[in-house]
């Protein structure tokens, strides 16, 4: 048996091309005669469209067309875009038109599209398109969107409430009525973005007959994109191929199907020319979906020992102007709140409101960071009020490993009962405490304080539903040249999908990792596919890769045994060779076997043999698998500037069995960086008219190399019993508890002033405001 790939720090097969400038991203694709698109976008958050005069733009040399909604093919001219995840609890089922018809509902909504010989000319031309807007009042602050006197986010709405629902079990009211202690927190969390370094991009190329439309999109979900296009263009699915080539980061917003992904193919078909659109960063800030605006009012009831009796409250969620991904995020948030703790009684009332901002859809974490922030703020509050250690309060409330599988009492986003499959929460917290010597922290804090420095520590615990269905497929095929082709509907935006699936296939088929030819993100490679979201690919595609590989290995063994005239039990397969253990060890290479398996023209296959050495598996998980972990953070706060510096960051992470520790570490480290942004920096701001204010990387800050320490990471591996590999998702856990831990640490650093933080991001001015409010500066100058 060759070196085992599964579980090893295998170097990525993606890297050599990307390191030498030979990657192929959508904007790298070029065709002769290709036109360049640029969108005319609404400058207003809410307006009625009067008329559109594109005559000056059309007259500009190099402009080929300016198209508005009426110029689009049926049915996408009149129909709204499909809702991707419908739910009966959605009252206002609003998605947008591909190009706005009568009304625009957020700044940046696409109104018309210009097609020109170059991007430069297209940009010149959009400035010449005259759109008559009748400006309407806009809903900006979602906290007042449900008030009777609030403007309506859409002309057709009676109110701005998109959905109201309750998530509950037990009897929270009874628990609160008799509880010795009840504490309430008001928590305000702001929106940010995925901010992949590559913005969105689409190239569409119809073939000469118009019979096949090929679309390249910087998407996480090419198969979903293909289905949406078939609906919106009223074409056969078979006449559309969607390819996600190298994609420069996803983080959720690229899982959505966007209006531009429909409009560009439509224009290409109409003009019978290849068309490219590459989003610029300003458009990305305005039009790519965002997340995290949530307002929580939550209470916790505890006994004298800090044991939780109940949690209840309300959650207000801003979905923005439309509901393209349903109400998944507030739903996930409500289901994530109980986390790793035994909470006997729980009730959360959720209201989802529409505003005149770009829609919110999952961004790395998808509602979970907000829920964990809310829950962990409550736990810290209990610790403070009852004068208990923050870690101790958590230990007293953890679900114990022997309680697994643990039924929380809710229904999760997958429609299945929320049942944690495995995990050891006390162990994870112990590991995190050990990694940065929690026991000695009080002493470190005292020493720092003597030096005039303010350091603090914070804990964030979480449980995350990962590996969601419906399925992901993998085809494994031995090629006539002896290599092994692997095709999957799973996609890659940096996760190393090719490498991890390749590791599984190499081990299970019995071939060299280097001999694997991987196709991801191409609808022509496998008929059914879903794509990357909800930390689902290792579970779904990983399991399918294993199942398909084992079937192919069986085929190899059968054919080799038959050909060599030895029993099947006598055949070993390794490094692409089937070898008989007996006699003079006769063998057949994959190359020889693949040719045998093809059959000969005119001759029937032997009984029982299937054509080729090939199998496709579609694994569907019975339910989510629940990953979990503890983050422990030590920070220093400068009270004079409000700056928070992260000194030490430890992660104890449980994503079940690990396929490639190097890649999982990278996912965690990168997730933490995103979480640091959420905790301290990233705030997509709008003015009172819902006009976006932060549309550059100079205004909207994402973490730099000096903001993110290298984390200490320990893997607590509790294999999932729900899939054959025992794996769980790992892409979002790094982000989910980060803000909870960091904000708690900042609060702890300033504990002597009694300041309290319940907002993300915790920007410097909030720290200064809080210190001023308690007259801290007078005390600080006395000390000085």
């Amino acid at each position, binding site marked *: 048996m060759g070196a085992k790939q599964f579980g090893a720090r295998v170097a990525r097969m993606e890297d*050599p091309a990307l*390191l030498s400038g030979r990657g192929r991203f959508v904007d790298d694709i070029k065709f002769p005669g290709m036109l360049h698109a640029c969108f005319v976008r609404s400058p207003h958050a809410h307006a009625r469209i009067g008329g559109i005069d594109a005559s000056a733009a059309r007259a500009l040399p190099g402009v080929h067309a300016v198209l508005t909604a009426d110029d689009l093919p049926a049915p996408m001219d009149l129909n709204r875009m499909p809702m991707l995840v419908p739910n009966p609890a959605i009252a206002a089922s609003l998605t947008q038109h591909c190009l706005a018809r009568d009304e625009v509902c957020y700044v940046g909504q696409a109104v018309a599209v210009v097609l020109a010989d170059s991007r430069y000319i297209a940009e010149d031309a959009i400035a010449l398109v005259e759109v008559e807007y009748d400006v309407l009042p806009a809903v900006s602050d979602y906290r007042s969107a449900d008030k009777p006197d609030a403007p309506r986010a859409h002309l057709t709405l009676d109110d701005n409430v998109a959905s109201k629902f309750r998530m509950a079990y037990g009897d929270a009211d009874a628990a609160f009525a008799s509880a010795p202690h009840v504490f309430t927190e008001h928590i305000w969390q702001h929106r940010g973005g995925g901010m992949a370094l590559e913005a969105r991009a689409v190239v569409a190329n119809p073939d000469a007959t118009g019979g096949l439309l090929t679309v390249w999109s910087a998407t996480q979900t090419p198969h979903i994109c293909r289905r949406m296009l078939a609906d919106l263009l009223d074409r056969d699915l078979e006449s559309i191929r969607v390819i996600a080539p190298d994609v420069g980061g996803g983080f959720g917003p690229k899982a959505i199907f966007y209006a531009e992904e429909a409009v560009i193919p439509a224009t290409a078909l109409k003009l019978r020319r290849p068309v490219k659109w590459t989003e610029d960063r300003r458009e990305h800030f305005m039009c790519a979906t965002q997340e995290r605006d949530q307002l929580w009012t939550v209470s916790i009831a505890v006994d004298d020992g800090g044991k939780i009796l109940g949690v209840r409250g309300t959650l207000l969620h801003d979905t923005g102007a439309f509901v393209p991904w349903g109400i998944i995020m507030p739903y996930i948030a409500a289901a994530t709140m109980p986390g790793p703790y035994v909470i006997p009684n729980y009730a959360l009332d959720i209201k989802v409101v529409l505003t005149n901002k770009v829609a919110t859809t999952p961004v790395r974490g998808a509602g979970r960071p907000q829920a964990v922030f809310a829950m962990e703020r409550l736990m810290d509050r209990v610790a403070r009020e009852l004068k208990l250690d923050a870690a101790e309060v958590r230990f007293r409330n953890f679900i114990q490993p022997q309680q697994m599988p643990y039924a929380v009492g809710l229904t999760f986003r997958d429609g299945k009962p929320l049942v944690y499959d495995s995990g050891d929460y006390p162990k994870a917290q112990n590991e995190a405490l050990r990694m940065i010597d929690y026991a000695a922290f009080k002493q470190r804090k005292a020493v720092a304080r003597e030096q005039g420095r303010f350091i603090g520590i914070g804990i964030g615990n979480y449980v995350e539903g990962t590996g969601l269905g419906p399925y992901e497929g993998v085809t494994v095929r031995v090629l006539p040249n002896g290599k092994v082709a692997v095709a999957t509907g799973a996609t890659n935006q940096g996760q190393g999908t090719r490498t991890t699936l390749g590791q599984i296939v190499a081990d299970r088929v019995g071939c060299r990792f280097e001999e694997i030819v991987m196709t991801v993100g191409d609808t022509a490679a496998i008929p059914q596919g879903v794509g990357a979201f909800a930390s689902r690919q290792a579970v779904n595609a990983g399991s399918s890769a294993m199942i398909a590989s084992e079937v192919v290995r069986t085929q190899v063994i059968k054919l080799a045994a038959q050909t060599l005239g030895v029993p099947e039990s006598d055949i070993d397969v390794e490094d692409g060779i089937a070898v008989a253990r007996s006699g003079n060890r006769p063998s057949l290479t994959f190359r020889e076997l693949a040719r045998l398996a093809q059959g000969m023209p005119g001759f029937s296959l032997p009984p029982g043999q299937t054509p080729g050495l090939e199998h496709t598996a579609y694994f569907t998980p019975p339910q989510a698998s629940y990953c979990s972990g503890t983050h422990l953070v030590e920070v220093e706060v400068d009270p004079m500037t409000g700056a928070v510096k992260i000194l030490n960051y430890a992660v104890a992470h449980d994503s079940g069995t690990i396929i490639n520790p190097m890649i999982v570490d990278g996912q965690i480290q990168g997730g933490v960086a995103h979480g640091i942004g959420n905790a301290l920096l990233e705030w997509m701001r709008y003015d009172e008219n819902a006009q976006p204010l932060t549309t550059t990387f100079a205004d909207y800050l994402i973490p730099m190399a000096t903001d993110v320490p290298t984390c200490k990471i320990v893997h607590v591996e509790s294999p999932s019993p729900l899939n054959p590999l025992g794996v769980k998702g790992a892409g979002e856990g790094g982000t989910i508890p980060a803000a909870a831990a960091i904000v708690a640490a900042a609060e702890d650093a300033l504990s002597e002033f009694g300041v309290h933080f319940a907002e993300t991001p915790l920007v410097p001015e909030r720290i200064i405001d809080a210190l001023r409010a308690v007259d801290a500066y007078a005390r600080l100058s006395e000390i000085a």
Partner: protein
Amino acid sequence: MATRSISLLVNGRRYEREVEARLTLADLLRHELALTGTHVGCEHGVCGACTVLIDGRTARSCLTFAVQVDGCEVTTVEGLAPAEGELNVLQQAFQDHHGLQCGFCTPGMLMTLTELLRDNPDPTESEVRDVLTGNLCRCTGYAGIVAAALEAARRLRVQQGS
């Protein structure tokens, strides 16, 4: 639109082109010279994905006009490897230390670090992080990039010492 003729060396090869005055260097490289390794992440000079070397010094190719490099020598990510199919020391260290995930920011990172390691063969971690503040990465959290830079510096010193 008025055009001007320019002549420049890119990765050692001479190019002569008629360009519009407003054409950016990034667009010249990517769309006129088919050197698509240089990426454009923000078009406003913050993210650093488009970083190239102009006469040996790092510059944002999204904020540089093609006409400004008339007579200059430009190095892009395509010019780093010693030969097709090979990686240089820094590129290899990136693979060994998982210094890239999606790979979009990577060309800019490599160009910035190429300049750093040339000018400062033995940088501290904090010097590496400092110089990397000009390049944003959304995937990695920088740990692998910093480790790769320090390891590449070490390997280069060993190479030059031997």
